[in-house]
């Protein structure tokens, strides 16, 4: 779901940035194009962050904050332009729904992360070497490395060559 919200952010942001006039008309916000355009930039940034970051939760909370700003702006729009109120009210309702989805998603992500932390196990007794780690160090040095995988002599430092001889 977080990923879907990321895409939504980018799409909405691009629309706000590229076609602010049409977006304003649709939302009943005539005359507020510059503000809407800046919201577009915000949406894109959050969207990319949601899609790209390892921990998505804070960015989704960022979307929730953004939703609040959107709601406030559209609400002012209602007061300012009386004639377009139907559009503005519909936009407000849609924004409220989107905010609810964002909140749900953000809290979902938080608890997912919580689960991960409780599941950690300790494997410090699993060396994989029945004879112990010390005995394992270099125990297979005698096995031949195929010629196509060997470092050419010329790339070896004198130190490397002499310690290799000492070891064999």
């Amino acid at each position, binding site marked *: 779901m977080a990923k879907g919200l990321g895409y939504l952010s980018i799409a909405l942001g691009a629309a706000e940035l590229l076609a602010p006039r049409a977006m304003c008309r649709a939302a009943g916000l005539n005359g507020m194009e510059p503000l809407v355009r800046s919201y577009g930039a915000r949406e894109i940034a959050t969207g990319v962050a949601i899609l790209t970051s390892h921990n998505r939760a804070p960015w989704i909370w960022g979307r929730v904050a953004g939703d609040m700003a959107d709601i406030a702006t559209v609400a002012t729009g209602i007061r300012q332009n009386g004639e377009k109120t139907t559009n503005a009210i519909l936009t407000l309702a849609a924004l409220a729904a989107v905010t609810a989805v964002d909140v749900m998603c953000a809290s979902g992500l938080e608890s997912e992360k919580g689960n991960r932390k409780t599941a950690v196990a300790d494997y*410090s007794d699993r060396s994989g070497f*029945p004879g112990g780690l010390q005995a394992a160090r270099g125990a297979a040095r005698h096995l031949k*490395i195929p010629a196509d995988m060997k470092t050419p002599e010329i790339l*070896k430092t004198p130190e490397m060559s002499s310690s290799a001889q000492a*070891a064999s």
Partner: protein
Amino acid sequence: MRALVWHGTADIRCERVPDPEIEDDRDAIIKVTSCAICGSDLHLFDHFMPGMKSGDIMGHETMGEVVEVGSAAKSALKVGDRVVIPFTIICGECEQCKRGNFSVCERSNRNKNLGDKVFGHTTAGLFGYTHLTGGYAGGQAEYLRVPFADKTHIKVPDSIPDEKLLFLSDIFPTGWQGAAQCDIQPTDTVAIWGCGPVGQMTIRSAILLGAKQVIAIDRLPERLSMAEAGGAITINFEEESVIDRLNELTGGKGPEKCIDAVGLEAHATGSIDSMYDRAKQAMMLETDRPHVLREMMYVCRPAGVLSIPGVYGGLLDKIPLGAVMNKGLTIRTGQTHVNRWTDDLLTLVVENQIDPSFVITHTEPLERGPEMYKTFRDKQDGCVKVVLKP
């Protein structure tokens, strides 16, 4: 029979499918006793590798008992033989097979023209791994058809349990080749990115091959604890700078040998390049996320070796080839030439030098396979390696 069948992104189901049959004289049929889920399977589960079709049977780490042998494979196999099946299908006769380059066998990919198109020239056929490499049914199933079975097998003794032998099919030789192709010297520091099953086997191999210092990098505490048990110094990349720590541990000179055991789904925290990759990958402008490759190329000591067992599928962006070229680094990579190593590795297991079963954290019946894919992918429940019993 029952098998784990791919249907789409994150959609693998345990279903009834027709039993496999001998289709060619060189085939054999194996009754599967154990199979495992590999990190490579996750690239298919997450659908980052192209070339899967709905209905494909998953799995390429398989062992079992021979139940049927085609006429041309009878000289090498008989009913009742206990075998591990390498994930690379090999003819044993082509120019590449003769040189031991089994994972690029010229004859085992029956979709050779697809391989030619995508990679320039075809690679070997692989079990359960996309139609680019033959679209062969995989071994997360009750039975497996093995093509070129007279060559595509590793005979194993009855006295050793499945758990110690199964990984000869893939991750043990993969970790081994990852380390061996670095030509490790007793003075070398070997840095290994990724402490998944492949990384764990790579760490053990680098220790056995006598590296002076082995450093392992991951972010999952349980995997880091397993890496440390195997003799590695660990770096948690979410808590420290990998580059700074590696330089610190090598007197400022960088590790001589760097190994990528992560592959195309690399994570990164907070770095600009990883954001860039994730956005590009999400928007289908890039297929792979090469964060680990960039780090290796940057930190590796001049004249060093980069070894890349981690799987990549397609096109990568912003590769610092300038660093590779100017520092004169050698890159060795490839799907593993499994049968090149398995005689030696089986001997190490028989002689008790290594017990590869240390990596198994979950053993479940085949039906639980679909859930175990999720558990393994999401690193839940301390999961490192899953073995399934049909």
